[in-house]
């Protein structure tokens, strides 16, 4: 074998060896995505703890700048509450918030006292006047403290004086809102503790949704376990493991719902049920062309354990809804 041939064999073998080793390491030990490329999903995910059951994201700027939002702005009754919020906090929701990430944490086993609102963490990226918000909190009996390099504005329980809800300033343009413990966990996750980027299964699901205006992905079984549903109801729920919803907003709304069932039989049952609902919807749509068009846009597919339902709300349907809302508003205004 000549030197040239040997070099070629070594180079080809090296490519194969590096690829196989990378894949094996990723499969058995989890892949630190950021080593090779930007992690899937928004940067805020580094503040979401690794055990999150559901993660959702919305590109607020994209939604606010869309024709879809413009339609709703036209039929909005008044903006008094929003204006009051801006006057107090200095935050214009339409212009100052760029994106929002929300996460739902699973309820610990046996914890029956914690309500669902206590499992939610909201991260908002945008422009915030930290000093103004801190002053507002202090005026209303809140406290300000430092935790692991982040400023936390906390409200306290009236009876026990224990920290309750908190607002954390994680970076110059990033705030977190949730329970005191949730915010502390978010700060820790951002400072090197295990965050959702190390949750390979969840990141795989998020990776498939990247690029949408808004999405949500989560473990259905964990969520139903945390929801404290009666056993009878839990048994009747579809046997789903993962679900995700993603949408793209512009003139209309286009999106896709995906779910993974526990086994192929459960997936087939779910597809059959959805198919039945679609048929019923088509029957009910009758001669209403806008509704008919929306029902027709629903596309059910999937194979094996996956179920996919694509949907689209075209501009014609929104036109019809807008006309309906305007007629309703016109009827509500008393004639002079």
């Amino acid at each position, binding site marked *: 074998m*000549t030197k040239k041939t040997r070099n*070629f064999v070594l180079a*080809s073998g090296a490519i194969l060896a590096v*690829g196989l080793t*990378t894949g094996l390491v990723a499969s058995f030990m989890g*892949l630190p995505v950021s080593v090779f490329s930007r992690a899937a999903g928004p940067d805020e995910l580094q503040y979401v703890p690794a055990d999150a059951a559901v993660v959702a994201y919305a590109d607020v700027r994209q939604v606010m700048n869309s024709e879809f939002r413009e339609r709703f702005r036209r039929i909005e009754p008044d903006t008094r509450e929003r204006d009051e919020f801006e006057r107090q906090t200095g935050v214009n929701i339409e212009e100052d918030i760029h994106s929002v990430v929300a996460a739902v944490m699973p309820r610990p086993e046996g914890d029956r006292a914690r309500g669902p609102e206590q499992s939610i963490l909201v991260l908002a990226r945008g422009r915030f006047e930290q000093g103004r918000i801190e002053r507002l909190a202090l005026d209303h009996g809140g406290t300000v403290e430092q935790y692991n390099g982040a400023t936390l504005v906390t409200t306290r329980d009236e009876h026990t004086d224990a920290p309750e809800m908190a607002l954390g300033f994680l970076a110059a343009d990033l705030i977190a809102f949730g329970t005191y413990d949730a915010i502390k966990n978010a700060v820790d996750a951002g400072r090197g503790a295990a965050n959702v980027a190390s949750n390979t299964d969840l*990141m795989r699901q998020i990776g498939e949704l*990247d690029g949408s205006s808004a999405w949500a992905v989560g473990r259905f079984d964990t969520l139903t376990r945390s929801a404290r549903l009666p056993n009878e109801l839990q048994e009747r729920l579809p046997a789903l493991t993962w679900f995700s919803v993603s949408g793209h907003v512009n003139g209309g709304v286009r999106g896709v719902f995906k779910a993974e069932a526990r086994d192929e039989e459960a997936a087939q049952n779910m597809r059959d049920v959805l198919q039945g609902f679609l048929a019923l919807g088509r029957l009910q749509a009758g001669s209403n062309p806008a509704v008919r068009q929306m029902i027709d846009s629903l*596309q059910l597919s999937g194979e094996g354990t996956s179920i996919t339902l*694509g949907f689209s709300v075209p501009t014609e349907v929104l036109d019809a809804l807008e006309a309906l809302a305007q007629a309703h508003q016109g009827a509500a205004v008393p004639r002079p």
Partner: protein
Amino acid sequence: MTFWTAARRVFDLSLGEMLWSRRTIFMALVVGGPVLLAVIMRIVEAFGLPALRVNGQRVQGMQVFGVMIWMLFLRFIVPVLGVFYGTALMADEVEDKTITYLFTRPIPRGAVLVGKYLAYLVCTALVVLPSVMIVYFLVVPFGQIPGTFRHLVTDLGLLGLGLAAYGAVFAFVGAAFKRPLVIGLVFAFGWEQVALALPGYLKQFTLAFYLQALVPHAMPQEGVVSLLQGLFREAPGAWTAMGWLAVYVVSFLYLAARVVERREYVLEQ
């Protein structure tokens, strides 16, 4: 000299010849196509745009990779390489009038074919498999690697098996027939396509029938031929398919070696 020592000597000699022949330029071009597509796809994705959409929905990287493996590699590249290299194993020596030098050596004639066949297998695998690896890492997002890696390993094994099976069949064609290239092309892109689309047992006389049974990705349904194949699809089990492919490899290699042992090659003056 034993059969296998002789085969190893021929392998050493032939590997370099094959790697640096004009055929390798053709192979690089064929295999470079999917890599180029993957690079373009990666660049488009880097700009935040979906590289491929079907019915308005973004096609995921693993699905694109699955289609590339199915449509480009298994249905086109592997048979093409099998035809061009397999049929040339003996035919090139005859055409170049160098077969005499090999046959006058004190080695079994069959070892010449087996050595050359092994060189073909290593040569094509060294080009095709790394290119598949590159395509995989370009097309599939890193976040999806843990969940999809076993598909890649299956694909690599499948491509190796495909190269071995097509190579063995076409090595026999090259050893036994005149104008082997034409026969090979007719078999790979005529007979196999037609037989797969027909109902009945004819498809069992194709290699693609057994290879498609091992593909871990869903068979794409685009195109009339694929739809027809889907309708008449009777996929054998994985072990049955692998067993039959192994039978094809051993049988055709044996037949090819036997033909080379017995045939009198008359060199045209």
